């Protein structure tokens, strides 16, 4: 096995799903069972991915394999290249994508069985896997953008897969449009990079930055470039304030939610940010951290009150993604990736588990109609519980380690810079996560069945659906990442597989603790210098145990609270919600973000103003008027979005074209001789031009 071999297998991993897509799409109408081909292809892809990951991580663990070919030349000096970058992160991601994709394929065989467009569904899964692998493998930002859009397209197709349902096709459109908002920023960032460095390759861009070449020769524009590129991630990873599309995306089939909207595609934003980590300045990282913090906090509060099983999971996804983004913003590079992988497995497990529940309950999604399913769906329950323990950060799970690392980093960040807000929010979110996840488990699986009829018909899902759950739950156990159940820092995942980030932004623009000072400690020399200062390492070291204990206490108390509220019913939940009704409705209505962005912003204002009234009735009027005006303005603006983008341009152009038509079309009289007169007239002018 040589490096070329790895490259060739990676090429196969990239293109096999495309083959599956083409074959399945073309023959879908002719051959009923063609989906088996797609499933087979994905199985092959999975084995190839496992093989590549194994080879790379065992024999080439320190190498960065880069393969490039010239695509075409734009000029003598600028040529656009296609290329791969295969490092450890790449192969781990390839494995994650291939595994979850394959499991989702298996799961869908049963889940989607009665769908009329069965084959097309599998074809879409194929194109998605292809584009996601493309994002993972690429070494340049142009290809990443292309695959980025392809992923967006396949996501759009799959969200709107049941397009007969208006809500589904609307959700698809919403996802598409919201994502475009982010992509515009990303595109602008790419343009800045290309104009400055004349290349799209990450490697060359980082080299040039390290050599001191900055966009427009200013630190500010380097920061801006980072933020603009990150905007792509805001859209794709559903970060605040563009997070609104993800919960709606749950209109798609549940396996799709597991694959695209929980495990892989939404993680692409985080992956992008990891890839561009080298060029981020401290300001950009601050921005990223704040966005991440808001995205971790707001959806967590919303998830507390949701009653749709998939919506809870969706908000929890946004929250966890926010966690990762925040972690990246505060410099916890390795733990971000760790959490990304761990989250991919347990969240996919949770979604597929919810799919199994929904399947058993005949497409019932409201948890208030469930209950007691533990006995009926024992395997689903067990795997769901393991994944829940993982997401809550209970020891012996992968989530415990990854979360612990992030929280410790936030502690260290707080002690080094004085910004404790990230640590506080991080712990709060950990508490809320444990609470709402156990609330979900308890209401769904424990207690008495609320809908007796459906309960009686429920039975454990077939093997193809349960097997993926078991695999994913298994991968949520710590042993795959580290031998030490309490500390992952020395485990192979963190210390061996993940190299420290290479920072290329100028020193003066970085955080103090990320300077390459003489005192930089090299943990593992084979991975290049660790770019964190000694004080950071010390702070991390000191933060580790307190953070772990605090996190554990919070997770357990969240769990306990959930048990008190919903299992033992020590506190009457209804009364409590009555007591904090405004807060409750606020959370239940998802902070009114949809209303904020949609036309019905005015209705949101009333809720908003009630909240304010709860604080101080006296200033209500003034704020209502102010906010009312503002929101009316906003609602006019947002309401006009549809009309401006689609109808508006058409209408405007109709006026414009009518006007232009009046002037220009009249030349076209339909009479040959007027045409000829114009011709002769032009000939005169031309002859004059050349007669001098």
């Amino acid at each position, binding site marked *: 096995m040589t490096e070329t071999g790895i490259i060739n297998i990676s090429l196969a991993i990239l293109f096999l799903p495309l083959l599956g897509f083409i074959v399945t799409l073309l023959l879908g109408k002719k051959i009923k069972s063609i989906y088996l081909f797609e499933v087979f292809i994905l199985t092959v892809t999975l084995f190839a991915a496992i093989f590549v990951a194994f080879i790379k991580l065992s024999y080439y663990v320190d190498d960065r394999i880069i393969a490039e070919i010239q695509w*075409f030349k734009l000029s003598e000096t600028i040529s656009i290249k296609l290329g791969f970058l295969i490092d450890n992160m790449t192969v781990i991601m390839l494995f994650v994508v291939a595994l979850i994709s394959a499991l989702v394929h298996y799961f869908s065989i049963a889940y989607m069985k009665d769908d009329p467009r069965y084959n097309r569904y599998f074809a879409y899964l194929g194109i998605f896997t292809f584009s996601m692998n493309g994002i993972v493998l690429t070494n340049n930002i142009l290809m990443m953008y292309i695959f980025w859009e392809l992923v967006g397209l396949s996501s759009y197709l799959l969200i709107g897969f049941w397009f007969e349902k208006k809500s589904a096709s609307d959700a698809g459109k919403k996802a598409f449009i919201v994502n475009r908002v982010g992509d515009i920023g990303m595109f602008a960032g790419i343009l800045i990079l290309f104009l400055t460095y004349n290349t799209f390759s990450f490697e060359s861009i980082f080299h040039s930055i390290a050599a001191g070449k900055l966009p427009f020769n200013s630190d500010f524009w380097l920061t801006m470039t980072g933020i603009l590129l990150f905007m792509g991630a805001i859209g794709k990873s559903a970060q605040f304030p563009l997070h609104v599309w993800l919960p709606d995306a749950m209109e798609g089939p549940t396996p799709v939610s597991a694959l695209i909207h929980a495990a892989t595609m939404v993680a692409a934003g985080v992956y992008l940010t990891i890839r561009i980590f080298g060029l981020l300045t401290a300001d950009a990282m601050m921005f990223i951290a704040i966005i991440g913090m808001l995205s971790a906090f707001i959806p967590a509060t919303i998830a507390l009150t949701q009653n749709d099983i998939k919506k809870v999971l969706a908000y929890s996804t946004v929250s966890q993604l926010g966690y990762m983004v925040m972690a990246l913003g505060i410099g916890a590079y390795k733990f971000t990736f760790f959490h990304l992988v761990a989250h991919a497995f347990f969240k996919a497990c949770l979604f597929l588990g919810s799919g199994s529940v929904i399947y058993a309950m005949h497409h019932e999604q409201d948890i208030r109609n469930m209950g007691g399913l533990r006995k009926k769906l024992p395997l689903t329950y067990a795997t769901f519980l393991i994944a829940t323990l993982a997401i809550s950060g209970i020891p012996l799970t992968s989530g415990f380690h990854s979360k612990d690392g992030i929280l410790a980093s936030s502690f260290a960040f707080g002690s080094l810079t004085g910004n404790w807000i990230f640590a506080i929010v991080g712990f709060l979110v950990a508490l809320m996560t444990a609470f709402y996840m156990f609330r979900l488990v308890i209401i769904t699986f424990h207690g008495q069945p609320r809908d007796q009829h459906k309960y009686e018909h429920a039975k454990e899902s077939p093997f193809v659906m349960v097997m993926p759950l078991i695999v994913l739950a298994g991968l949520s156990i710590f042993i795959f990442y580290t031998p030490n159940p309490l500390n992952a820092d020395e485990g192979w995942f963190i210390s061996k597989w993940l190299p420290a980030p290479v920072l290329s932004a100028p020193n003066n623009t970085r955080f103090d603790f990320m300077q390459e000072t003489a005192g930089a400690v090299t943990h593992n020399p084979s991975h290049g210098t660790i770019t964190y200062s000694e004080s950071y390492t010390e702070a991390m070291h000191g933060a580790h145990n307190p953070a772990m204990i605090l996190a554990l206490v919070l997770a357990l108390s969240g769990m306990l609270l959930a048990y008190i509220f919903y299992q033992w019913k020590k506190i009457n939940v209804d009364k409590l919600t009555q007591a904090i009704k405004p807060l409750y409705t606020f959370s239940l209505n998802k902070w009114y973000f949809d209303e904020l962005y949609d036309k019905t912003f005015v209705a949101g204002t009333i809720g908003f103003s009630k909240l304010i009234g709860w604080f101080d009735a006296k200033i209500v009027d003034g704020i209502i008027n102010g906010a009312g005006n503002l929101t009316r303005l906003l609602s006019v603006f947002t309401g006009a979005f549809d009309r401006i983008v689609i109808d508006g341009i058409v209408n405007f152009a109709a006026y414009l074209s009518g006007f232009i038509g009046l002037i220009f*079309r009249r030349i076209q009289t339909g009479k040959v001789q007027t045409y*000829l007169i114009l011709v002769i007239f032009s000939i005169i002018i031309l002859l004059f031009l050349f007669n001098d």
Partner: protein
Amino acid sequence: MFNNAQEFFNTLPLIIMGGGIVISLLIEIYSDKNKVILPWFTALLFLAVGLHSLFYTNDVSIVMQNMLATGGNVNIFYAIFTLGAAVVTLISIDYIKKYDMYFGEYYLILQTSVLGMMLMAAAKDLFVIFLGLELMSISFYILAGMNRKRAKANEASLKYFLLGSFATGFIVYGIALIYGSAHTTSIDFITTNFAGLTSNLLFVAGVLLFLIGFSFKIAAFPFHMWVPDVYEGSSTTVAALFSTGGKSAAFSAIIASLFALFNGPSGNVFTPYFAVISVLSMFYGSIVAIAQVNIKRMLAYSSISHAGYLIIGLAAGNHDAIAGVMFYLGAYTFMNLGAFGIVSLVEGKNETNLDINSYAGLASKKPFLAALLSILMFSLAGVPPFAGFFGKYYIFIAAIESKLTWLAILGVISSAISAYFYIRIVVLMYFKPATNDFQIETSNSAMLGIITSVIIVILLGIFPGSFLDLITRFI
């Protein structure tokens, strides 16, 4: 005639084409099944000539007593014409049955027109250019009026004929003046002595009149007036040929005959001419296209604006620009053929469904067709990664190299304007409900042609380098 076997071999594309015409004539006269045989024979003939030309691009030579060039870019032009014509043949098969105007002559005349184009591209003497042009034009007049029971087709044919012959008058007069000042019609002589000849005003006037004549054929403002009327009036498939093959052939003749303009330190005295008509064509085409409701007229105006972009390449006049023009012609041929092909499919009997509003809601009725048309529209608008983008890109870059940055900027602005009416079709297809209910007749042969064009458009967009390398090797 032929001095050796190699000459014969190099002339083979023309010989196959000419022989094919004679065989088609015999098929048409003697075969009972000519309705089935002739279309496919025509398509295969075009395909054979096109592939042969592409495979033997390296046989560069000058044959037949300095009358014809072979190999190199000539062969690439052959391939563009014949493969384009093959697509036209495919989309015609069911279309002309729809109008109940099956004449075997249709395919015959198609072949003669392509032979004319090939002669224009291969010409090394003004004689051959002139005869090729006339062979093509006369075939076009006939094709335009082929649907002779329709008043619109008659009118299109008459207008095309009158304006075309008028242009012929100018071309002949121009050639007469060129001959009078150069004392020969050999293009090689003119090319080598271009700098000296341009001091002779008679020669400049001759070239100008000659160019004006060709400006008719490439549909450049202000010689474009026939274009919308003729495209609207004649059959859609025929209009597809006019807008692609006719335009490419005229460009090939300009490049072949005035190569000196683009090839030397003599300087391009006609840059002002080209610059002015390119700007006028681009803007006139894209602005007036916005006001059109008939999709064929819209495509006609779009064809005018594309002529404008192509002429930027002639104005820039360096090697890169000529390569860009050839690339653009290849790309434009297939994207336009695909678009016209889809229009011909959607078009109902009696010229219905030609209004652009007929395309509203097409995505729900015929999602695959809508997707294809969207790709073509994006390509025409110059959206990467489709062929149209790279065509424009190469031409604009070449213009900047020649210090015609202002022209490139105007080109970009015009593309932005023209993007509007292309994207409008896409918006109509995907975001508007269908206004009227009509059935779209399916046609496998037409779909074959359309899909082929789309694939070529995508391939040229994804791998523009390989085609461009092929072109630049011979410039």
